[in-house]
């Protein structure tokens, strides 16, 4: 106060002098100097937080956090401590995959991208996190818990978004080597080479990495076996134009874990597939107990043979980004990508009945499988659902700055050619499969054509035109961000006659789903440390392609070909839509940052298997609405005497808003689900991570609490809460010869060996509606078993 008066006095005095004295010269500008801003790191919340200032709640896992985790950790595991996120992994290493739910939305209802390219399955939007980048090459994983990203290439996201961003090549020539070893014969070898900046102009740089990982299952028999290649290019073509490109290749052959019921788990927590090879009979019916017929719920008989429940998969993903600054106001970019995937999964142990050549069957019936000359056997085979996807796409974007507007406009288009078949091959009495990939040695029909239990081709053409305008007001302290996108997907579905249910004749059908989706966001910096934000966004998710399958009924064949059939469409399915409301506050302090977000999601027309009044049958249909409300808190500290911490707390109240249209004994019947909680959506979740880093030492203890969650729509069954602890420790050795930052690392997952179960439910069709099996969709839910304590060590070094 005193001071202000003085200033005022001086100012007044100055006015007088000013009028008296002539202008004196003084330099009107000063250099403040260089200020360096580094994008990521351990500076906040152990690497689980960055300083956000957008209009949405958004979480980031930085490279610093990724580097502390086990080298095989998949993105779901890395995201698990963030607010709102309920992630699980089928084993400790992450090599078998897992599941993710955020605000009640399952991973197949969220949009996933790698370097901007969508990686959800083009048909059913499923996500397979174990296929993606090696964690050594990942720089950032981000999640928007509920709000749509208007510019993201998704047609299948009624929930939020997750993005993975690869690290580019390094400026210096060198590389990195990591060797990990652990329990269950775990090993991973990773090697990466960087060219450094190349040539006279030093404009381009490249990297390439290869890794090999294996680990045994923690229960039952079998293992995961993964080969992975990542490569990257960054080329600064001119000062205004930059090209980046990334390649990802993954080849994996995993044995599946068997899911179990609660009763099974109580009886034997290690219940899994058997190692007893089912034996062929000399002749006759192999579809009997003790042979190829199996029962995985363990009530009677025995489970399938582990060697006939495998998940071989191969993918590659090429992404590129060409970005050019046209002038100070305009940047254009093109982001093409190409995704390829091939593989099979599930339990492939099956039987097929041979048939004598018979013109009233498709292709004259299944031929002689076992070659014994008799066509009357039911033979044990390996049959799997094969998926092959070719998926090119491109996003064009323009970023235009004018006055206080920052406009982002763009267009995305992709064409996914998605082939889904179900061929079969032979197995012998030692458990050998003629071809686990099902791309050769396949069983044929009597007319020589391939046996198929399913034979679909879906061309999905997705597009999105979008524009957002970031309007800055009040000295950039207020941001208003309106946005709109028009998203559409056209499914051209062809069913080729196969022996599958409702699939006996060729037919083609096209369906389009489209919707304009709006969003409005706002953020205001009340003071330097305090910001408020809020948004409303609309999301949509088109029905999966399989709703277009199984329409054939009353089919007859003459001379092995279709002579008559009826099409019974499962029609009238609309897209799911959701509206996400968020409001929150962020605090940016000297010692810590924190945020609190309130949210509500209105979810309409959820797609699941239910009673469809249009067709009078139990098929995929819009079964109703739900509402989810809650809050998410997070807090991350800056390192203080080596100590730092991150914590999050999530409260979610999810309510189903109507009764479920089911069937009982072939008649429409409703289940009382109104007011019940949504499955696998815990009311409470919390995470906490404390880290101590001092000189070469680093140790971090991370805890995650997952509350009680229901597993049937009628809420008759639930899973108990659990808390797991993970310990990650490291020691950086002195540089030695060419070795830079040689580091020893210890990772212990589930430190206290907590036993728990994980819900095995996707977004729709495989959620058990009720324990009462007399209802369609009813039955006993099965679960994955949480992985027990697992310890691994690693040595890594740069060079």
């Amino acid at each position, binding site marked *: 106060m005193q001071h202000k008066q003085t200033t005022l006095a001086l100012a007044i005095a100055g006015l007088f002098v000013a009028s008296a004295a002539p202008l004196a010269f003084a330099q*009107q500008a000063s250099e403040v100097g*260089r200020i360096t801003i*580094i994008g990521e790191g351990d500076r906040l919340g152990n690497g689980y937080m960055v300083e956000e200032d957008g209009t949405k709640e958004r979480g980031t896992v930085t*490279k610093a956090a990724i580097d502390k985790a086990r080298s095989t950790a998949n993105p779901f595991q890395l995201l698990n401590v963030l607010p709102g996120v309920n992630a699980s992994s089928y084993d400790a290493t992450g090599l078998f995959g897992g599941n993710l739910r955020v605000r009640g939305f399952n991973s197949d209802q969220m949009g996933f991208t790698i370097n901007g390219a969508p990686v959800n399955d083009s048909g059913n939007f499923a996500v397979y996190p174990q296929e993606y980048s090696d964690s050594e090459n990942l720089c950032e994983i981000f999640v928007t818990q509920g709000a749509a990203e208007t510019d993201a290439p998704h047609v299948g996201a009624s929930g939020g978004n997750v993005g993975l961003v690869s690290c580019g090549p390094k*400026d210096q020539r060198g590389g990195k080597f990591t060797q990990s070893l652990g329990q269950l014969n775990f090993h991973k070898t990773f090697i990466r080479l960087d060219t450094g900046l190349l040539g006279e102009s030093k404009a381009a740089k490249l990297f390439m990495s290869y890794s090999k990982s294996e680990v045994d299952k923690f229960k039952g028999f079998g293992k995961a076996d993964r080969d992975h290649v990542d490569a990257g290019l960054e080329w600064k073509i001119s000062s205004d134009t930059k090209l980046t490109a990334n390649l990802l290749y993954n080849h994996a052959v995993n044995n599946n874990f068997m899911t179990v019921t609660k009763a099974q788990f109580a009886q034997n927590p290690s219940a899994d597939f058997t190692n007893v090879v089912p034996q062929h009979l000399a002749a006759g019916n192999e579809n009997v107990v003790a042979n190829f017929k199996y029962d995985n719920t363990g009530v009677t008989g025995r489970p399938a043979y582990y060697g006939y429940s495998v998940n071989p998969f191969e993918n590659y993903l090429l992404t590129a980004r060409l*970005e050019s600054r046209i002038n100070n106001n305009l940047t254009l970019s093109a982001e093409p990508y190409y995704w390829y995937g091939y593989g099979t999964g599930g339990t492939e142990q099956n039987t097929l009945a041979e048939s004598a050549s018979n013109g009233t069957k498709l292709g004259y019936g299944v031929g002689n499988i076992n070659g014994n000359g008799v066509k009357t056997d039911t033979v044990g085979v390996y049959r799997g659902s094969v998926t092959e996807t070719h998926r090119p796409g491109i996003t064009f974007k323009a970023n235009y700055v004018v006055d206080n507007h920052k406009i982002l406009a763009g267009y995305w288009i992709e064409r996914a050619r998605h082939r889904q078949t179900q061929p079969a091959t032979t197995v012998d009495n030692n458990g050998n499969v003629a071809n686990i990939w099902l791309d050769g040695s396949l069983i044929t029909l009597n007319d020589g054509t391939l046996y198929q239990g399913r034979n679909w081709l879906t061309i999905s053409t997705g597009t999105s035109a979008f524009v957002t305008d970031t309007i800055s007001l009040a000295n950039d302290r207020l941001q208003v961000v309106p946005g709109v996108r028009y998203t559409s997907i056209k499914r051209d579905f062809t069913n080729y006659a196969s022996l599958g249910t409702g699939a006996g004749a060729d037919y083609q059908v096209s369906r389009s789903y489209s919707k304009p989706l709006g969003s409005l966001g706002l953020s205001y910096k009340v003071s330097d440390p305090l910001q408020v934000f809020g948004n409303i966004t609309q999301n949509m998710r088109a029905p999966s392609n399989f709703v277009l399958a199984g329409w054939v009924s009353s089919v007859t064949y003459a001379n092995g070909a279709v002579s008559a059939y009826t099409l019974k469409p499962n029609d009238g399915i609309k897209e799911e839509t959701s509206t996400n409301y968020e409001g929150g506050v962020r605090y940016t302090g000297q010692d810590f940052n924190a945020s609190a977000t309130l949210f509500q999601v209105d979810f309409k027309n959820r797609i699941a298997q239910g009673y469809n009044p249009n067709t009078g049958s139990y098929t995929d249909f819009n079964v109703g609405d739900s509402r989810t409300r809650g809050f998410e808190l997070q807090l991350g500290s800056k390192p*203080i005497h080596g100590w730092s911490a991150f914590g999050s707390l999530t409260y979610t109240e999810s309510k189903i808003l109507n009764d479920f249209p089911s069937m009982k004994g072939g008649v429409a019947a409703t289940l009382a689900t109104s007011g019940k909680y949504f499955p696998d959506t815990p009311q409470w979740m919390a995470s906490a991570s404390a880290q101590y880093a001092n000189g070469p030492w680093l140790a971090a203890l991370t805890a995650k609490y997952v509350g009680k969650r229901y597993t049937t729509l009628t809420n008759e069954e639930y899973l108990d809460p659990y808390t797991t602890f993970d310990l990650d420790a490291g020691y950086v050795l002195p540089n030695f010869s060419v070795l830079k930052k040689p580091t020893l690392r210890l990772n212990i997952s589930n430190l206290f060996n907590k036993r728990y179960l994980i819900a095995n439910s996707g977004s729709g069709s495989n959620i058990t509606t009720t324990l009462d099996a007399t209802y369609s969709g009813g039955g006993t839910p099965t679960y994955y078993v949480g992985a027990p304590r697992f310890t691994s060590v690693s040595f890594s070094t740069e060079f």
Partner: protein
Amino acid sequence: MSLALQLFRHRDSASTAGTVLLMLAFAVAISLKPHLPSKVQAETVMEIRMLEEAPPAPPPPKPLPAPTPAPAAKLQLPSPLPTPPKPAVKEPTRTSPNLTPNLAPSAPSPTPASAPISTTVPAVSSAPALPAKEAAPAKPVEAPPPAPKPAAQISDGYIAKLRAYVQGRKRYPTGREASLAKPTGTVRAWLLLNRQGEMQDVGVERSSDSIILDSEALKLLRSGHYPAFPDEAFPGQGTHKFYFDLDYQRSGEN
């Protein structure tokens, strides 16, 4: 054995308690931290003064007009005292070489149109410079109008303060665009303040070649709350322009 059983039976509550303990540890860790003065701008001005009083006054100001460019005026400023010991100030503050360390008592300039009242007389009081040493350890708040100091030194103090403030607010841009584009580069940007510390304008002098970074730099400078100039700083200027080289990098990629 029974202990083990007990532990096992209570594993749920124990693990929940563990979580709570972790949270507590977290809270304690924060509270343990020695309380550093916040870098809020209100106190800033005073801090600068204290600082300036600390070093023995260089050449005593000439009695009257004679605008002697004091040779010692370029002396290196010690970094502001109370700033946290972070490696914030990597490079010494550089004052524009031709920033005249003009002590001229009569250096008011006609205020630029944008800055209405701001003109202040730099060192109006020609009070003798003696009390400097005594004043140094004095309580900050009630400090009487300070002894005259070389304006350049006071200006440098302000610049250091400004730098520390911007250091404290800087951030790498977030959002989907920035995450995917991963831009790096240096924006040379300027900030124009009036004597009250009110932001008059900002601009990009040299682009980073990235619109995202340029916008972030402008937002950083435009949205700040800046302290008023010390009376003696930037003598005779109604406004002053500050240049920043904002170097945006990403860890793990070079």
